[in-house]
């Protein structure tokens, strides 16, 4: 039974060492998506080290809860998520596997942003899975709204300040700068979108609806037949009908979805453009900031 004795010894020593801990100068922050990581990085500067679990090329609904993500979270002081159940399929096992009580829900080290924004598309009736992957607390993709991301930045700064009071003023100042910058740019983006006359855009999923809601664009139909359910032949015919009747000019396919359905539709609808669109930072190698992301969407609407 020497193997068992050795194992107990290792376990005991490791527990003692883990309690001892090593204080680090920087706050370690883990975010669920890269858009939150760039906000934390801009606010925190050199006082914060931040990494995102998912990448901008991945569908944020379906991330595998890799144990290596648990290692990231086990070393962290703060976990920041969008919430509204976007990450419900993968964040809970990562948090459990990380065995880091500092960042469990309900602690200062866990910040879920959904409750601090005003969500859109909150179901008014009872939610059932017969309607697909409906989010009962509203559309969770508010990272596509520059104004709400300003609100988010301020909230993140408050939490960073609580965890690191010495730099709280700096965090608040940086968040305000980010918020004001996005508000200013939103005016310019609105003017440019107005100039295009674009009023309706089809997307694969309701990912861009916060952006559309902010800038006065309708999303009359999606390529997927129901949230999370791939298109059926019957539904594609319905999309073709809507596109023709409403003279829609643009389909945006989020960068992690199959484009073949949209391409099939364009063969039936003259003048309809299909563009693969990044919907998170890193969704395209050129998208390194939130500003880049929103700028890209605006320029696609303009026809670039």
């Amino acid at each position, binding site marked *: 039974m020497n193997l068992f004795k050795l194992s107990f010894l290792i376990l005991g020593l490791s527990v003692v060492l883990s309690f001892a801990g090593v204080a680090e100068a920087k706050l370690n922050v883990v975010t669920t998506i890269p858009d939150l990581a760039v906000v934390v990085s801009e606010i925190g500067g050199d006082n914060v080290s931040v990494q995102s679990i998912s990448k901008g090329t991945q569908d944020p609904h379906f991330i595998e809860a890799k144990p290596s993500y648990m290692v990231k979270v*086990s070393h962290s002081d703060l976990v920041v998520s969008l919430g509204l159940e976007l990450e419900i399929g993968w964040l809970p096992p990562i948090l459990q596997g990380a065995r880091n009580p500092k960042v469990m829900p309900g602690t200062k080290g866990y910040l879920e942003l959904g409750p601090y924004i005003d969500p859109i598309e909150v179901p008014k009736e009872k939610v059932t899975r017969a309607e697909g992957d409906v989010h009962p607390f509203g559309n969770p993709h508010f990272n596509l709204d520059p104004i709400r991301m300003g609100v988010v930045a301020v909230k993140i700064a408050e939490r960073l300040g609580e965890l690191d009071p010495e730099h709280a003023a700096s965090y608040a100042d940086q968040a305000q700068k980010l918020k004001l910058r996005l508000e200013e740019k939103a005016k310019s983006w609105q003017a440019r979108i107005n100039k295009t006359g674009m009023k309706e855009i089809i997307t694969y999923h309701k990912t861009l609806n916060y952006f559309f809601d902010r800038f006065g664009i309708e999303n009359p139909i999606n390529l997927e037949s129901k949230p999370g359910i791939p298109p059926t032949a019957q539904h594609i015919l319905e999309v073709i009908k809507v596109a023709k009747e409403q003279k829609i000019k643009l389909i945006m396919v989020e960068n992690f979805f199959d484009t073949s359905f949209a391409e099939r539709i364009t063969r039936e609808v003259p003048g309809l453009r299909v563009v693969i669109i990044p919907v998170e930072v890193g969704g395209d190698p050129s998208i390194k900031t939130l500003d880049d992301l929103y700028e890209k969407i605006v320029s696609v609407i303009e026809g670039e």
Partner: protein
Amino acid sequence: MSNIFRLLIFIITFIFLIGSNAIAGLNANTKYANPDMSLNFLTLYQNSNRNSQTSNGFSLQEAELQFFSDVDPYFRANALLSISQASPTSEFGVDPEEIFVETTDIPNVTFKIGKFKAALDRKNLMHTHALPFIDASLIDQQLVGDSLNEVGLSATLLFPASWFSELTIQALQGQNEILFNSPNRNVPVMLVHVRNLWDLSDDLTLDWGVTGSGGNNSYGGSTQLYASDLTFKWRSQIGGKYKSLIWSSEYLYANLQGDPAGEKVGGLSSWIQYQFAERWWIQGRFDYVGLPQQGNNPIQRKESALIGFFPSEFSGFRLQYDHLDDGQPVAENKISLQMNITIGAHPAHSY
């Protein structure tokens, strides 16, 4: 009163209590106290050329009723009740497959108390509906049975390393009929498991586990059980919704002192899964039992092929073909079709 009748009364009472709690409060905030719950059930059709030995036709393979919730700031509880038939002719029974609490407030270590699946290998930790094939591998069936799940204590430590490295030590009341089940209840079964997972790239992981376990068996001797599994998983971070690949292999070896059928037995299983569309998988598996051969028992080989279609995360269909050559005059050929349904708040599966 049959077990199934008792279970129905239990479920109805439980749902009524939860429902009345929510209704009485008339406030969503009261629901926080209710555990999340889910029901998964597997309906199976099988046809084998060995009618006398297998359960041909339709059957309810298993239903799993699961409840889980935080208990307080220190513990989380999980209960999984498995409903299944012991054989095609017997009535349904309820088995508390897992009922345990685990700690949530201790850094780096999780302590677990109750009845739980032992950390033997990746597959032993999975519930039936999440297993890669409709049935368990030959060596699992021969050595472990349905699953090695025992009452006991568990401590799992996440090492402070740059990669995922985990050590699990478990003390179990060995009641597994094949491996342990000693009449002497004073000596627990001890199990040590080490798991490492490396990200070879953003798209590819290597997962390696090794286990040693020892305890007394029902033959009056001791059992030593060793297991190791190796899994490669590939999913591209670009276009990963539509394509992925898993290759997993395991080896189990046991020395069952006093077993009249032969003391030493080992076997391996290796399978591959390729996802070729958003909701479609094909899989192949090779099983071999006889490394080493147990006494005079014949060497067993089995080849399996499977195609899976999952309309959503909550429903799935799997069609499996097996060819078993186990030393009998006629090899077995079997077709199985399984429907897998989940309702309720099912927890996410582990990686």
